[in-house]
């Protein structure tokens, strides 16, 4: 064989490898830049008071983002309550019925929902809930976020269940166990790791969503635990403070960004740990 | 599964073997003690039973091969059991031959006192017993010794033949009786021969070495390596 051609081939191989490594590295750069900037600008604002106090009016020093943290938490809870059971159920249905009218439509709906811009979902929630309730509320914000969680959970559930071999279901059915019990007590526990991952990822996603909250949760300078009243949230606070003319508020926004990014990172870490620890190998 | 089946068929083979041993013993005793009943028993009771056993064992051997595809030692065992089964059946036939000739002879006066035939019978019986022991005890040395003694029996047969030929030449009235005696000695010689077959089969079963047709000296050499 041609020694020249072999040399060229080896060179192309190495070139390709280098190309892949460099590009992969480059795609991490934005992430590191973001983290770097946020840390640099926001770390200084962090303190215990920052996390536990309410925001102060302009001009006054100090203040914190406690209401935004609590508000975000509240919204996540409200979103999860319907989204998790509905998402799991839809995922189970889709994995059990690969063909059929209903599953075709359901699959279509999930895909469309996944692709719908978050602001549109916000508008829908505004029309459904804000107008009929006569005001902004944590409930409407939570529902909007829940709608966004739904396709992610459904997808994750369906994909996880696909990986579970039929043999497991058959083993249970062959023991005379009714179908619903088989799903609840055998299949879903085996799928726990994948489903939990899906749920945590969806939470991490909605934790930072701003657009839908603009016309549903709306924001609130005070602490509020009443779900039919407006509530503050981290992304809302960041938006409002960052676009304001006050430099003190800008640094608060940086601090809040730090907190938000930190929470999202934490979620992702926890997700990995859970996935590894509870994963069922087949 | 396979082990149990092999034990079962070996047990049946030994049953068949002791029946044949008894048949030979009875046929010689019937001759020397002039006991008609015992000879009839051999022909009418023992032989059919032996044939029955032969069929049973044969069938079992085929079934074992079909179901278990025995390998190596197990394969040699089942093949040799099948062959020994055949040999035992032929020994049974020879015992019947002896009994038939004996039935004729005991009704007539003796040509000469029976010394050599019982002696030959003793040696033959011992060879058969030893070959069966070598099978039960898995003793290739004992099996080998049986093969070595075949010559003794051959010589005894030649001796008896020589003697009887002289008798027949000098006194024609003894021809019929002498013939039967020659027949008996030939049957005994064949039984001895079949015993050496059994011994060769035992050696193959245990050692995996074929010593047939190679002559005694070759066999000994092959055996010792």
């Amino acid at each position, binding site marked *: 064989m041609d020694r020249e051609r072999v040399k060229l081939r080896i060179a192309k191989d190495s070139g390709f490898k280098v190309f892949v490594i460099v590009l992969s590295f480059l795609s991490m750069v934005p992430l590191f830049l973001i983290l770097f900037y946020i840390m640099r600008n926001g770390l200084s604002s962090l303190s215990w008071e920052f996390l536990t106090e309410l925001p102060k009016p302009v001009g006054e020093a100090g203040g914190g983002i406690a209401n935004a943290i609590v508000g975000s938490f509240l919204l996540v809870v409200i979103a999860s309550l319907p989204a998790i059971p509905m998402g799991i159920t839809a995922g189970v249905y889709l994995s059990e019925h690969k063909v059929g009218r209903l599953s075709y439509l359901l699959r279509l709906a999930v895909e469309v929902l996944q692709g719908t811009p978050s602001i549109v979902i916000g508008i829908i929630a505004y029309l459904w809930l804000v107008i009929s309730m006569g005001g902004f509320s944590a409930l409407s914000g939570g529902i909007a976020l829940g709608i966004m969680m739904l396709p992610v959970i459904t997808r994750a559930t369906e994909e996880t269940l696909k990986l579970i*071999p039929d*043999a*497991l279901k*058959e*083993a*249970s*059915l*062959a*023991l*005379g*166990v*009714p179908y619903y*019990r*088989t799903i609840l*007590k*055998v299949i879903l*526990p*085996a799928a*726990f790791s994948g489903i939990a991952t899906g749920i945590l990822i969806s939470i991490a996603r909605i934790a930072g969503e701003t657009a839908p909250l603009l016309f549903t949760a709306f924001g609130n300078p005070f602490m509020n635990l009443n779900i039919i009243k407006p509530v503050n949230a981290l992304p809302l606070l960041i938006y409002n403070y960052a676009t304001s003319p006050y430099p003190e508020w800008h640094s608060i926004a940086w601090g809040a960004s730090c907190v938000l990014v930190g929470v999202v990172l934490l979620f992702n870490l926890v997700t990995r740990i859970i996935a590894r620890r509870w994963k*069922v*190998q*087949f | *599964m*396979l082990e149990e089946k092999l034990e079962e068929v070996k047990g049946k083979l030994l049953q068949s073997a002791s029946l044949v041993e008894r048949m030979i013993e009875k046929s010689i005793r019937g001759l020397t003690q002039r006991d008609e009943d015992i000879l009839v028993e051999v022909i009418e009771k023992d032989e059919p039973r032996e044939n029955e056993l032969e069929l049973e064992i044969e069938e079992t051997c*085929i*079934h074992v091969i*079909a*179901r*278990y*595809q025995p390998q190596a030692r197990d394969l040699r065992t089942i093949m040799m059991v099948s062959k020994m089964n055949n040999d035992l059946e032929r020994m049974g036939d020879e015992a019947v031959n002896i009994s038939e000739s004996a039935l004729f002879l005991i009704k007539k006066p003796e040509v000469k006192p029976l010394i050599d035939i019982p002696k030959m019978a003793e040696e033959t019986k011992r060879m058969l017993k030893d070959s069966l022991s070598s099978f039960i005890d898995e003793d290739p040395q004992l099996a080998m010794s049986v093969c070595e003694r075949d010559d003794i029996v051959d010589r005894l047969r030649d001796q008896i033949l020589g003697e009887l030929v002289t008798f027949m030449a000098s006194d024609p009235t003894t021809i019929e009786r002498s013939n039967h005696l020659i027949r008996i000695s030939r049957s005994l010689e064949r039984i001895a021969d079949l015993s050496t077959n059994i011994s060769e089969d035992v050696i193959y079963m245990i050692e995996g070495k074929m010593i047939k047709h190679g002559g005694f000296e070759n066999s000994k050499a092959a055996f010792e390596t």
Partner: protein
Amino acid sequence: MESTVLKTKKLSAYFGDNRAVKDVTLSIPEKMVTTIMGPSGCGKTTLIRCFNRMHELIPDAKVEGKVFLREEDIYAINPMIVRRRVGMVFQRPNPFPTMTIYDNVIAGYKLNGLELSRTESDRIVEESLGKAALWDEVKDHLRRKGTFLSGGQQQRLCIARSLAMAPDLLLLDEPTSALDPKATARIEKLMTELKKNVTLILVTHNIAQAGRVSDLTAFLYLGELVEFGPTEQLHTAPRDKRTEEFLRGKFG
């Protein structure tokens, strides 16, 4: 006098319009190993799935004819009751991965909501694992998940799980095809022990295994029951030419 555990009368099974099992009539006697053998795709798995009403779980599946379990028409009683009386062991060992070994054995009770006292369940676990020749190997590890067990051990766990329900009949669908030779030999030995207490129906395409293990053999070809008789007879002198060709390796 042997009694019959399972009897079928002109049993046919369909996948939509495709008839996979054609008019099978046979009787399975008690406390023996009956093997259903045949080339791949001949319908043997479909056939035994009609015995525990698992076939009907497939969409578009249909069953015609009758199946009697100890004189009872199994298609006239609740399918879940049938499945508790007719156990099944599958090709790939499938212990429940989220349960401990202990819980796996009594899974049939737990998942069905059947109450067991502590002493009862302890007894059932020990007995079933003992019958499956697994007790000694796992008795100190009952509270661990079964994932550390080898393939052969997992399969014996699945057998124990089925035995715990005290079934009338145990169906084994190619139980050793995913196992190494040593594990296979152990399970074959186990089957010859088990048959003293439970009737076994084995499905296999491995002719040698059928020969070693079964008392009766049925040869199924293209959904039809071609021949059924004592194993020795089938292996030495089969009556049907198709059986002969299969055994001699001419197809399948």
